[in-house]
């Protein structure tokens, strides 16, 4: 895709490297970049509670506190007919995406998580979650979450967000 090349040849690769050199993110010991999409529905003050999440919710993928959602901002696909790594029926996987690294309390390891928006169907509107750790305005687009990551799909309707494991996080 043309925009993909443009994008990485432009300012953003530089921005990314800048982040990698001295990042607020590195100081919190986890890679919590990006997040899916937009503002939360409600509540707006869930912000930052991931760190102090109750243990029993770490394993419930229909709650904001599920361990893979450490950098997710949007509606959970697990509440919308999808699963932790599958978009709901009738939607399509977003062409653009971003990753985060989340700590799995069950095995003590950090995993690299891909957050894909699911696009094309009416907005799901269920289980809105919002974490802004490491989030920055759109001049750091890769870590900006007030924007629709279905923007590059043939239909821009945002439905929900999945959180798939794509590898171990480096440490």
């Amino acid at each position, binding site marked *: 895709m043309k925009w*993909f090349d443009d*994008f*990485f040849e432009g300012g953003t690769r530089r921005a*990314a*490297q800048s*982040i*990698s*050199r001295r*990042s607020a*993110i*590195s100081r919190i010991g*986890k*890679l919590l*970049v*990006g997040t899916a999409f937009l503002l939360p529905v409600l509540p707006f003050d869930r912000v930052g509670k991931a760190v102090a999440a109750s243990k029993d919710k770490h394993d419930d993928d229909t709650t904001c506190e599920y361990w893979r959602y450490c950098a997710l901002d949007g509606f959970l696909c697990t*509440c*919308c*007919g*999808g*699963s*932790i*790594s*599958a*978009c*709901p*029926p*009738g*939607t*399509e*996987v977003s*062409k*653009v*995406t*971003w*990753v985060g*690294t989340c700590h*799995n309390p069950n*095995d003590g*390891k950090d*995993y*690299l998580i*891909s957050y*894909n928006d*699911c696009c094309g*169907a*009416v907005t*799901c509107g*269920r289980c809105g979650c919002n974490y802004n750790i490491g989030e920055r305005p759109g001049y750091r687009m*890769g870590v900006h979450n007030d924007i629709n990551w279905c923007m*590059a799909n043939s239909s821009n309707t945002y*439905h929900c967000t*999945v959180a*798939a*494991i*794509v*590898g*171990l*996080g*480096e*440490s």
Partner: protein
Amino acid sequence: MLSANIRKFCFGAVMAVLAGPSLADLPVETVAVATTPPANRYRLYLSDMVISHFIDGKLLILDGESFKVLGNVSLGLTGHATLSPDRSEILVSTAYFTKLNRGERIAELDVYDATTLKLKAEISVPSKHAQSMPYRGAVRTSADGRFVFLQNATPATSVSIVDRVAGKFVTEVPTPGCWMIYPAQSVPNRFATLCGDGTMLTITLDAEGKPADRKKSAKFFDADEDALFVAGEQTGDNYTFLTFKGNVQVVNVAGEQAVAEKPWPLLTAADLKAGWRPGGYQPLALQEKSGRLYATMHPKGKEGSHKDPAKEIWGFDLATKKRVARVPGHHATVLAVTRGDEPKLYAVSTEKQTIAVFAASDKLKHLKTAGPFAETATQLDVQ
């Protein structure tokens, strides 16, 4: 160095870039698109016009046991949904404007696969579909699924006939003063419609779907004195309706003319005195196998209370015509009951957008109340 990770963030093809050899205990995953699980008899289809954003209506598909959301289908501008007879397709009669609230109006019958929820077909129709709240009967298929009947209102009423097999609009049948579509079961090319003069109009189509015959029934109700709720329950060629004042009216639509049975009352003399009446958008549910009828009832009913939420839900034995259950109403305005064995009764509150579920045995047993779902749902269909 955690910072090394961050070089990897990217905006496309994450899988391709990142899914190297897995060193993780948990396996690497590929993001896919789900299909709905195999449908069971408790699958629910909740139609929500979303009144505050009613260009963006929504059909919510739910598992009626776990109340897990299985998926969503767009209803567009005051769209209406129905299921094909074999439950393999969801058919949506709706319209779009090219620029949201202006531009060209595009009207069509959208056909979705009921498992993948993918759009299978878009069949263009005249730009007349009834811009009403979701109600059963605003779109229906013929008993064999070949034809799809779409209620129109401009506000002049008519029905558009679509040939689902050929994938095209066939013709428009004027149905002045009549409303909603009640297909016959035994004669696939036939449907009836309720008329304001207290009759039913039966339309019989030819093999191509064009109207070959239209006949009115004898007058059997009085829309002034005791109107019929249009949300009826079908059992074969029979449709069962409630009246505003709590009578049960069965109409058989098998013949060239619909034939109405003698109505019977839900209410005892005492009930009548207390002013009990049915109310809501879909105030009746009928369970064929167990011979039970359920109704959303409120006391102190009067002219204009016919959409009031239920104070109680009543159950009746269709054989004896006696009340056999009486439970709190959960503010219900919409009822639906599952088919076959071990039926469950669902009671939707349009106000609270909750769904109460009952084991529909003789004594209705409240199992749970789930939700809220949707925003302004007024129609519930079962698998």
